């Protein structure tokens, strides 16, 4: 089947263009529907990988350290992401743990691991084994990654609880804030550009 790497089709309205040459950070919009059409990656492979590894470290902190500490009449409780998810799973409505754990814990981790795998190989100028699978998974996972919603959710919870409990934000909360920014940088709409980035490198 014939394919045209020098053409670009707008995802939103099917308009077709010659692939433009862009400077770093530049974005072009479709003339017909004004949707973002194409952009130059903001990161090169090395920086991308470095930020992914950073994100993984921050992710460990976000999961291991308490999000908030609460005390009520002399009783204390600390909550990490994991412990909250487990507490939910053992509660009366087990199902509620599924979207919460998936969108905040599992999907972001999967995104980072897949990116690390793809980028590690891209650094050596080749496509990783299972590259197509990994890239497809990254595109499909993106809408279900809800770390930023969880961040606002935790802040709302803190304010909700502060009415009747003593609440102290913990390291985990700050880590989630940092991780949100990192994930937006590494797993944003730029992900698809890895197809072109690895293509250019794999050619002699």
């Amino acid at each position, binding site marked *: 089947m014939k394919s045209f790497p020098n053409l670009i089709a707008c995802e939103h309205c099917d308009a077709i263009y010659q692939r433009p040459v862009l400077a770093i950070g530049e974005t072009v919009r479709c003339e017909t529907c004004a949707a973002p059409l194409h952009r130059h990656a903001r990161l090169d492979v090395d920086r991308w990988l470095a930020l992914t590894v950073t994100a993984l470290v921050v992710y460990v902190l976000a999961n291991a350290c308490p999000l*908030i500490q609460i005390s009520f009449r002399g009783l204390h409780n600390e909550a990490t992401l994991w412990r*909250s998810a487990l507490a*939910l799973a053992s509660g009366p409505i087990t199902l509620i743990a599924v979207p919460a754990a998936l969108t905040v814990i599992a999907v972001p981790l999967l995104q980072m691991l897949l990116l690390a795998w793809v980028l590690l190989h891209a650094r050596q100028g080749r496509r990783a084994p299972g590259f197509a699978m990994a890239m497809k998974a990254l595109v499909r996972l993106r809408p279900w990654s809800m770390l930023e919603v969880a961040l606002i959710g935790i802040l709302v919870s803190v304010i909700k609880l502060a009415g009747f409990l003593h609440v102290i934000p913990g390291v985990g909360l700050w880590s989630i804030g940092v991780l949100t920014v990192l994930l937006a940088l590494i797993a944003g709409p730029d992900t698809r550009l890895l197809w072109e980035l690895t293509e250019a490198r794999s050619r002699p």
Partner: protein
Amino acid sequence: MTVQLRASTLGMVGCHLCGLVCEVPPDAAHASSCPRCGAALHARRPNSLARAWACLLAAVIFYVPANILPVMHTNMLGRGSDSTISTGIVEFWKAGSYGIALVIFIASVAVPCAKFLALGLLLVTGKRRTPWARRERALLYRLVELVGYWSMLDVLVVAIVAGIVKFKALADVEPCIGILFFGGVVILTMLAAMQFDPRITWDGNEHE
């Protein structure tokens, strides 16, 4: 004004997963896959409108129990009380936290309702292939995609509060069935938006 060429009129398809533009012979249009990533190539998503309608209607149905049934049961020093999404917003408002009340109102009431209307409008106008307000409808679709998942906020708040407040008999918060329906609404509207093929907006007559 020059006429904008479209992939479908040239017999080409942009892969929806990796973006590669491929030539699809008209006789094999239903069975070809992208040579680069292997995803199935469709000029338009198959049954896009019917599937989107199904998800949207299911979401509207789920929205009723999500608002009527309690989402959270709070037990403080032996006194238990149920709260629904709307009482949660009213409580914040009465307590003077207008900002938080507004955030929750936007995420759990305004956004889902606006999404129902916006998707309904896109589906009806898409079916009729009308050239009316195409650019605006395209923008509306991108907005729906952008803000859609923020409705998960209330689900995550209930999950977090219920996961943290565990003081046995003194204070305990449990999630209730309503939040599951609400989560269902959010997931179904997200699926409806994903099923809808925005390229449909631009099909049909080029001019009025």
